[in-house]
């Protein structure tokens, strides 16, 4: 299982990752909704957004850049919500989307706890769009496009377990530099993308008030009763039916 480690402290905000994403995936540029800068946001054509964050500190402001994209959950809610299985968690790590079978219901967008998927509202045959973690590259042993172009090693690609180890080692080596938290280790059951940072995650646009349980697991606690309840009802109703039938026959027999 592959993953990517994002070290917020190492990013200089060059935006190479966002450009590489556009180039490799053939995505359009839209000046009105940029992928880099103060107004950067995820869009159907922005699978990666590099946000500019100025954070107040005691010693003055600090400038940080935060790359946002699909986190590629270990147990993705989008895949769980999709009733045609257009989303799939691959064994290589990426959560990929199959536009050929998508019916456009957009349950995935409601289900995603990180609000990542975007919809092509203005297309004739609209698709759901999000980072595919460069599945073809990863399958061939290459890094995702964004990681391959990062000049400062703010992004590193590898086996998720090794990256998790690396993240913890970096935090342990410089405990004064980093917040002691690997974002993505446990969030919603864990994600293939991991983040470490020197500024609190809630200040750079990450939700930290989240469950450690994956969404599919959480909903599974309820939905796992579907079969027993259905079977039970069937049994009860069948029993009632047989009972009333026999009683009716008995009454007729008088």
């Amino acid at each position, binding site marked *: 299982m592959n993953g990517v480690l994002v070290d917020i402290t190492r990013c200089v905000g060059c935006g*190479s990752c966002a450009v*590489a994403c556009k180039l490799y995936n053939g995505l359009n540029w839209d000046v009105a909704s940029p992928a880099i800068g103060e107004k950067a946001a995820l869009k159907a054509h922005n699978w990666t957004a590099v946000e500019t964050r100025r954070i107040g500190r005691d010693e003055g402001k600090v400038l940080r850049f935060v790359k946002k994209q699909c986190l590629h959950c270990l147990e993705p809610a989008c895949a769980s919500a999709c009733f045609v299985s257009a989303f799939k968690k691959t064994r290589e790590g990426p959560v990929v989307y199959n536009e050929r079978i998508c019916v456009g219901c957009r349950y995935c967008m409601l289900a995603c706890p990180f609000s990542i998927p975007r919809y092509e509202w203005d297309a004739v045959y609209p698709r759901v769009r999000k980072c595919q973690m460069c599945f073809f590259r990863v399958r061939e042993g290459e890094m995702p496009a964004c990681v391959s172009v990062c000049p400062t090693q703010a992004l590193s690609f590898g086996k998720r377990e090794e990256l998790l180890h690396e993240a913890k080692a970096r935090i342990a080596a410089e405990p004064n530099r980093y917040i002691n938290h690997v974002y993505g280790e446990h969030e919603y059951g864990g994600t293939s993308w991991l983040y470490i940072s020197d500024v609190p995650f809630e200040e750079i646009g990450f939700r930290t008030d989240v469950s450690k349980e994956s969404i599919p697991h959480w909903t599974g606690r309820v939905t796992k009763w579907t079969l027993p309840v259905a079977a039970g009802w069937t049994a009860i109703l069948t029993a009632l039916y047989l009972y009333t039938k026999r009683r009716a026959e008995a009454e007729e027999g008088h």
Partner: protein
Amino acid sequence: MDGFLEHEKEMTRRAFLKMMAGLGLAGLAATAGGCLHHAELSAGGEGWLPYQYNVPGTWPAQVRGRVPIDPSSPSIVRDDRKCILCGQCLEVCRDTQSVLGYYDLPLVDEVVCINCGQCALACPTGALSERDDTEKVWQALEDLNRFVVVQTAPATRVALGEEFGLPPGTWVAGKQVAALRRLGFDAVLDTNFTADLTIMEEATELIKRVKGELPGKPLPQFTSCSPAWVKFCEYYYPDLLPHMSSCKSPQQMFGALAKTYYAKKKNIDPEKIFSVSIMPCTAKKFEAQRPEMNDSGLYWGKPSIRDVDAVLTTRELAKMLKQKGIDLTGLPEEDYDPLMGKCTGGAIIFGATGGVMEAAVRTAYFFITGNEPPPNLLNLTPVRGLSGVKEGAVDVPGVGTVRVAVCHGMANGRQVLEAVRRGRAPWHFVEFMACPGGCIGGGGQPRTAVPPTDEVRARRIASLYDADAKWVWRESHENPEILALYQEFLEHPMSELAEKLLHTEYVSRGHQLRARKTVEAVG
């Protein structure tokens, strides 16, 4: 209607079931058609990436990514749509200028950039370029209430022609003046005039430093005309700022004088003057916006007056001319307007690496000895040419041997700076130019060769030295308009008024980054 109804077939139960089964089969087949495709088949990857990135994850790449650019930079803008991630901007920033990678991460609160624009020269797709200020200048030119003065840097006159198909280094000083008049500038003046003035002030300061008359101002003295170099020093060597000459750059000296001396002489309201400069440089845009560059405003008690209102690069001037349909090559040669339009050979060579040093040595020799410098000082070959760090020694009667050094490109500058920091600097005076080749290789110059080559640089430099050799005056102190300026306005070099208008202070930017001396793995 009745006949039609008669012919209608009655739907039997069997036919209905057959139809439903057929539709179901068709539906199944269609669904299977979609389902049988692997989910991966539409998982992005419809574009391309440059070859250097298409390697297994563990392989090293030649170069990765690009330089960071602050979207609010006064100097450089980037059109992301044109970027192909070739990495050439990063290489020049890291290897030629030793900026990117020479600081520890994380960032503090700004994108570290010395505004030199070398990245814009190296960019093969034109994604990187100067911030376009031509609209500001068009508006000023159209405003009849404004008196628009323009100054032209030493280096633009040997490069502007390249934008119009002339060979590299073609001398177009007179044509440039004619072109600016045709654009509608009210006064066409010369930065070379204040280049001479810079030499008067800087040579005086040097002599005072040598004599120990300036406490807290050690030797060697550093030149201060290259704003990208000044910012580099403020970032990486703030401890050496006392070495920096307090002289403003020629552009800013001009700006301060245009709205004081020139305004008074011409009897123009300084608030109505719009001061434009044509520069080979993107860092000049930054320099003109430095908050302290409003000394003409302070002179008049109106701090909102800026010394220089707009800075255009050579490329932007060419663009304006082309917008107006002016063909530079067909224009006559014209002369600069009087008062601030005359120059000497010493000012002309400012545009080449070593030029400031050579001009300063000529005038300092005269100031110290009272005699004209010997012929070898008018052709100071040790500081000419394109080697990265050049050294020279000049014997000056009464002082002894004056040792000088010249460097261009900040990676070369670093070698000199490290020597100074370690106290191993035998020099009295060091010239620093941020751009390779000096101003003629500035980030705002025509993209005659991409990436820029030494061949083009050498031809532009040769053109400057040719002009110097033929010029009527060779030494800055011979400029009659400079002498008049001191006589009628400033009194003498480093007078109280000269200090106010022509000298400046620097700020340490050492807290804006965590500087390091060697390159961190970047790119």
